[in-house]
């Protein structure tokens, strides 16, 4: 084996190149994990159908229930799909491949960034499918091009927040099964929010939490953009929550990664 010139070996690494390689890897792994992908899309779709056809008749929201519930179902779906990031990260940490990457001088940011990017790709696929089903069963958004762009931006920000949070959780968990627990937490979060029923119909003690938890402003923003309900200051709150979550999660992930690999 010929030894490459030392100058070539010590050439500064390309962090972008490594990140792109990691993105390709994670997207490929995601696309080949069909069961996870199917569950991620099927489950929210079933929940949407369940709410629209079984509970929807009994819930008074002032509009067609499908119109009311769709943003909540989208958020539920994205939370669930993003949460898979935790499982992928835990698998990498536990299966020794992280040692190989580190011994090749690939940064933790590139590895985790790859998983988050793959999460965004999965979320895009899931959202498109979910929206198609919604349109098939009668969802008619009123959004124009600007509103659609706003909606896509909101969803993307939420996906980034949830995926980075999941990545940090994946660094905390010791087994993929444990990491899966994050999905349950995320699945539960939209219920005590304005996702499925108006907050006013909930018991008084729950109002404070339901109004002020991060999912509610995200859903209100989406609902406003897609179906024309008033948004108020929800957009700013949503952006603030998501940006804050991204910031906290990435810092947390960096600290945890360093600790896990010390």
């Amino acid at each position, binding site marked *: *084996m010929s030894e490459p010139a030392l100058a070539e070996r010590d050439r500064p690494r390309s962090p972008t190149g490594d990140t792109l390689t990691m993105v390709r890897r994670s997207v*490929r792994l995601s696309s080949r994990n069909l069961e996870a992908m199917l569950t991620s899309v099927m489950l929210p779709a079933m929940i949407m159908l369940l709410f629209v056809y079984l509970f929807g008749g009994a819930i008074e929201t002032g509009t067609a229930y499908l119109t009311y519930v769709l943003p909540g179902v989208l958020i539920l779906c994205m939370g669930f799909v993003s949460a898979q990031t935790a499982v992928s990260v835990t698998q990498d940490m536990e299966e*020794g491949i992280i*040692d*190989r*990457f580190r*011994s*090749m001088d690939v940064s933790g940011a590139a590895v985790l960034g790859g998983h988050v990017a793959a999460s965004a790709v999965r979320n895009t696929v899931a959202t498109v499918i979910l929206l198609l089903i919604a349109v098939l069963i009668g969802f008619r958004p009123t959004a124009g091009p600007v509103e659609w762009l706003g909606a896509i931006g909101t969803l993307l920000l939420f996906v980034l927040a949830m995926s980075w949070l999941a990545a940090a959780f994946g660094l905390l968990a010791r087994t993929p099964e444990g990491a899966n627990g994050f999905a349950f937490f995320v699945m539960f979060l939209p219920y005590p929010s304005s996702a499925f029923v108006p907050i006013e119909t909930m018991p008084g003690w729950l109002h404070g939490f339901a109004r002020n938890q991060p999912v509610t402003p995200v859903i209100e923003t989406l609902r406003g953009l897609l179906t024309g309900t008033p948004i108020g200051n929800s957009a700013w709150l949503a952006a603030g929550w998501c940006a804050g979550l991204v910031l906290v999660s990435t810092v947390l992930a960096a600290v945890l990664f360093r600790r896990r690999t010390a």
Partner: protein
Amino acid sequence: MAVDLAIEVAGLEKSFGAVSVLSGVDLTVRRGSVFALLGPNGSGKTTTVRILATLSRADAGVARVAGLDVVHDRHRVRRRISLTGQYAAIDGLQTGEENLRMMAWLCGLRGRQASERAGELLDRFGLADAGRRRVKTYSGGMRRRLDLAASLVGRPSVIFLDEPTTGLDVRSRQAMWEVVTDLAGSGVTVFLTTQYLEEADRLADRVAVLDGGRVIAEGTSAELKARVAGYLLDLTAVDATAFGELVRAAGGRAASTDPAALNLGVTTDGTAPDVRALLGELDPAGERIGHFTIRTATLDDVFITLTGHAAEPGHTRPTEETVHV
């Protein structure tokens, strides 16, 4: 610093909480040689490799790999080494070729170059036919070979193999040994850990025995074996009483005892007069010894002599010839 050293380690210490794993490890490995770190589970082998491969930091001591400090120059060290751990670090959901191409990209190769390097290594490791199959369909031996191939993509000059054959069947182990022997011939430095004495004996130019976080012996395997004596006379007693009498008679010359098997190993120079004298001395009436074997000392014997315990419970010693008397 001597130029021809690939690895230099001095006074390495590492604790995890209150548990001290390494308590002052010193090692040197010549460039282009195969070095085996031999020790039982929990002796600190993996911790040593992780420190040398820049994955973990020592609490005290200095380690240089390829002439570079593993802490201050870790990024440069990483361009010169590869690490293959106990568990295959490859993606089951990617094909063998995709895994290798990914490693090639991470090593800075692009496009055709990356594909060619992947193809070259698949050929070299006998995986050309399996290259387009997902790795999760591979056998354990194929996975290890691919794992090793992946570690060679960047043409490292120092290769760390942490227990490369643990859990492999006999045939895969043989295949892995051939690969390591080939690597050694190509001029790279191989640092491997093993709990198999036979493996260290077969592959390594030099062997260090690690026990309780310390190197307790170091040398060529011939040198280590010489510390026990060239040959062992293995005696099997006729019954438990006779076994007890044999152990008493042998005293300090007993290199190993196995009461369950009524077996006793006594050091000898292997010459007929010495063996005859030993037999006469230990069993004057000719009624204690059932049969005996003369064999060359193995690293097992060295290990037991040095540490006072076996390297690996249940590891069977190769017997050469059994003579009935």
